[in-house]
Every structure is written in C-alpha cells, then in structure tokens.
C-alpha cells in the first residue's frame, strides 16, 4: 500500500494536546485530497498520552502509534516515526500544537514544485523573547554560517521531506534540528516557507537553555562529519599540515643552529620531533578513516542517486 503523505508527530507527555492535534491534522490535510497516515510516536510519556493516542488509533485506521519503552528524546522519536512511515512525502511536526497543520498544504505545494525538503519558518514566533527567541536567532545564524545551508529557523519542526531522501539520512544523537544540514550531503533542493506559530496552549516547554551547549557540539560534529566523510585522508592531511610546518621550522632551526654553533637545543629539536610524530599519526588516522569509510554502509557518494534529476532541454518539464 502506497500513500502520498505521512505525518510524523513525536509526543512526550502531551495528553491534553493529542486530541486537538489529531483533529487539526485531519482538518488541515483532508481537504488536500491526498491519501495520508498519521504516525504518532510516544516518546515514553508518563501521563495519559498513550491511552488517548491508542483510542485515536483504534477509531481511525489512518493513525499508527509507535511506542517507545522509555523516554529517548526527540531525534530518536522522529527517526522511529520516519522509519515507520509509508508515505512518499513525510511531514514532521511538534506534538504541542505550536505548529499549525493547516500549513501542510503549502509544504506539499512546495515539494510538488520540485523541492526535496521544505522547511517551515516561524516568522511570527510566539515564545519568550530572551530565553527562546534570542538564543535561537544566534544559533540559527551560526548553523547557517557553519553548514552553509541558509535556513532561518532550524528549530521549527514543521518540515516536509521526500521519503526516499529522509529515510536514508542517518539520524542520531540530537540531530533533528539539523536534518536539513545533515541532508545537505545529498545536495537536496531546499525551500523555506513562512508558517504560523501559536503560543503553547497546554503543558510546558520541555527545552531549556542547557540545550545550547549540545547544539553547538552537534553542530561541530555535523560540520566535520559532513565535510570529511567522503575523503578522510585528505581531511586528516590538511589537519596535519600545520603540524608539519611547525616540525619543519623547529627542526630546520635546530639544524642551522647546529651547523653554526655545534650545539643542539634539546627542547627545540624535541618539539620538532614531537610535531613530526604527530603529522605521521594524523596521516595514519586518515588512512584508517579511508578504511572505515570503505567498509561502512552509509556512504556519501550513494546519496547522489537520491536527488539527481535528468536534465532536459528547456521548455519541457519533467
């Protein structure tokens, strides 16, 4: 059975939101005339979320419920939902009613235009200024700069993906914020549209400022991984170049000094030797990296097939 659309919603202690959310999704998607399913992922909630979601799933066969044994976090929840989804297009959104399912139609229209990923932008964000909006501004500017994917709002969960693409992108750690950046290794066409954003009606935010540190670390990981996976040798060689330069300078100086005065400085020559050793070790690490990449089963060059398009003479649309 093939579906047009899967809507993946991670839920964590959202008992008040589940029913309104379900109603809003159905109201937002049904007029679009596409076949769809809703994948609710319960991330180990301790309140009545599971019971309510189960009732909804029982009443509506379009709803599927994935239950985690305990709380794992939003990225695993999204990953599990995406793995379970059967639609050709996958839309992810938050379970707290801050995203508006009425925007899904817009996202789909953008996908139909030929984009692989469409990202929501909460241009009129209803959150606290200092603890939520300002840090998020800074983080987004940083993420855009570092990853080179110019998205104004990485934190917005309302996004649409082509299933073939998103299902092959590795999702782990806390990467749900960086899916577009992570997906950028496949070179997708990314579009951004304005979406509505509502203030939280029920429950409370599950995120605090502490996540910034994790975001920054993850950002660093993604940046390095995305830039070096396919060519570790080259990357490690670049890393070793400054080491080699220092080694050459100190060893050269020692030699010249030795020729001139007949004495050799242990500290300086030793420094040269240390840096030279490090150069060799880094090159060896690069070679190991090549081996790992060779033996791995997620490899960058495989992604080209996901987004490639046959170019036709202009005037004809594919």
């Amino acid at each position, binding site marked *: 059975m093939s579906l047009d659309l899967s809507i993946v919603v991670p839920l964590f202690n959202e008992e008040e939101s589940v029913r309104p959310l379900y109603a809003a999704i159905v109201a937002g998607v049904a007029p679009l005339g596409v076949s769809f399913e809703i994948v609710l992922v319960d991330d180990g909630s301790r309140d009545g979320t599971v019971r309510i979601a189960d009732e909804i799933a029982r009443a509506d066969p379009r709803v599927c419920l994935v*239950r985690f044994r305990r709380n794992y976090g939003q990225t695993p929840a999204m990953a599990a939902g995406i793995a379970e989804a059967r639609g050709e297009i996958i839309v992810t959104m938050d379970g707290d009613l801050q995203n508006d399912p009425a925007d899904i139609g817009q996202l789909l229209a953008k996908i139909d235009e030929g984009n692989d990923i469409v990202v929501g932008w909460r241009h009129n964000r209803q959150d606290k200024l200092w603890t939520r909006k300002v840090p998020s501004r800074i983080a987004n500017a940083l993420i855009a700069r570092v990853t080179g994917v110019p998205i104004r709002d990485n934190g917005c969960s309302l996004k649409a993906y082509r299933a073939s693409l998103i299902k092959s992108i590795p999702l782990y750690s806390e990467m749900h914020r960086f899916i577009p950046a992570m997906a950028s290794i496949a070179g997708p066409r990314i579009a951004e549209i304005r979406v509505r954003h509502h203030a939280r009606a029920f429950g409370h935010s599950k995120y605090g400022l502490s996540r910034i540190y994790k975001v920054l670390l993850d950002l660093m990981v993604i940046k390095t991984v995305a830039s070096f996976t396919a060519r570790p040798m080259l990357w490690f060689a670049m890393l070793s170049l400054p080491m080699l330069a220092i080694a050459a300078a100190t060893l050269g100086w020692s030699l010249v000094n030795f020729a001139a005065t007949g004495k050799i400085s242990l500290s300086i020559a030793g420094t040269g030797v240390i840096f030279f050793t490090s150069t060799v070790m880094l090159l060896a690490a690069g070679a190991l990296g090549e081996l790992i990449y060779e033996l791995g089963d997620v490899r960058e060059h495989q992604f080209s097939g996901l987004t490639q398009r046959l170019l036709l003479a202009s005037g004809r649309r594919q």
Partner: protein
Amino acid sequence: MKESASADGTIEISAIIPVGWRHEADLLALYGEYTAALDALAVSYEVILVLDGPRPELAADVQRLLSSGQTVSVIGLTRRFGEATALVAGFQRARGRIIVTLPAYRQIRATEIGKLVRALGVVDLAIGKRWPRAGSRFETVRRNVFHRMLASVTGQRLHDLGCSARAMKRRVLEEVTLYGDQHRFLPVLASRSGFKVMEIELQQSPLDRLAGSYATREYIRGALDICTVFFLVRFTKKPLRFFGMVGVSTFVIGAALVAWLALDRLVLGHPLADRPALLLSSLLVVLGMQLFALGLLGELIIFTHARDIKDYQIEEVVRYPAQAQPFAEETRPVERVL
C-alpha cells in the same frame, strides 16, 4: 512434574547455570537444591548447564546428571569464553518465557529463586542483592565505594553486581547484546535499553565465601568494570563529544602554554632553547590533536554504520486494521514489532 511442558511446547522457566573456574566441588548437590526450589514454583522449567571451557573435574558429574533422566541440557564450550558468552550460548537453547540465571557456586539460598521470578510481574529484569550480607566491615566499605563510583557514571544505584542470580523476561536477552564479562553489567545495559530493572533482596547462602587470594583480583576487576561501563555509557554513541572535549581542552592548555612561552621569549627576552616547558606544551598540543582525531574516527564509524546502530528501542507499533471493532478487547494490535 519436572517438565510438564504445556501443549504448545513452551516452557515457563529456563534456568541457565554458567559453570566457570569458580564452581561448587559437588555441583550435583547444588543442582539438587536449585531443582527443588524450581519444583516448588509448580511451573514447567528446564535447566541448562553451560560449561565455560573444558571442566574435566566435572565430567563424571555431568555424565551422571545426563543419564539420570532429568530435563537438563549441558552445553560444553571448547575454551573459556567468559560468563556472558556462556549465558548467551545457554540462552540460544532456552525455550522458557522467563530466563533465570543461577551461579555455579552458593551465593544465595536456593529457596529464594521464587522471589526473583515473582518480581517479574512488575519489572523486566530482577537481579539479586545478597542481604543481609556477611563479610568484614572492610569488604562492605570496598563494595560500597565501588558501587557508588559506578552509580556516578550510570546514575543508577545498584548494590550487588557480583550476584549472578537474576530473573528476566525473554525479551531482555533477545535485545541486549552481551559478550565477554559483560554479564555483570546486565542491569546497566538493560535499563539503557529501556527495561525496568529492580534489585531484590535475597538471603545469602552461609556457604558463600571468598577465597583468600581473590581480593586483589577483585580490585583490578572492579577498576576495569568501571572503565568499561564508563565507555559503554558515555562514549559509544557520541565519540566526538567525549574525545573532542578532552582533546580540545588539552589542546587549549598546550596552546596557552606555548603562547606564554613565546611572549616570555619575545617580550621579556628569556631564552627559549633550554626550557623543558616547551616540550611539555608541544606535547599537550599534539596530544589534544590526536585525541580529537580519534574522536573524529569514532564519529566516522558511527556515521558509516548509522543504519545498524539504533539508539532507541520500540516497545510496540500499533496499527489497527481498517475494520477495527471499537469495543472488542480481544482485537488487540495486529502488528507488534519486537
């Protein structure tokens, strides 16, 4: 009564006894105690004895056991693989809905097994905690320190990792990968997979004694255990977070030292050539770089194998068929994954 397997051939309890270097001289007596306790539970059960490596001293006992007509299977490993591997080997033959592991020497009173099994009504894995515990005050302190250190790494306060009496639902061993000596961390690994774990107080056997030279060995093992758990918990999924942080801080310290030395040389004019501090700082810089590189390699491994590594466990996937009967409680979810 020994094996009153139900009509469909399933058994309630599989008891696995891994037999390592430390085992009771008279294994048959211990076996008798265990089976008596299992009989008392009045459910069908089987016993699986796994010999971890050749045990010529037990050959006669094993033969006697096998020819006695009891429902016992004996698996012999050709060399010593470690208790966890022995457990897994036993598990692969186990047919029970519940798996009970029992030590091959007297740790607990055999009559306490029922307590473990009953605890599975609430939890997925019940591990024994010998209590009240015999032993010197020094031993108690040592054990306490060890378990507290472990708790600081895992955030899970356990009291007796050394107790091999455990009961678990089948799923636990199906999902948790064990090898080498990891059987002791089964509670840590299981709760990381989302299973509910509980310690059950069991009466210690009066015959549970440590051999004299055993203590030093125990220290080394304890230290190694903590390292193992530390890496399992903190490192395996996020190598760059760990190595990156250690590496970057080492690098920064080294670079700061180098900068200070350079300043000292250029501004204050102190000669640099005869200062060992230069060696130290450049070593730190290089060490930081290498650690970072290791973290990157780890991250590359994770990335290229991301499809095999699942950092979550799904309890079930609930999909009702289109014609679900809203009130029939029997039509539970059709599709259950895992």
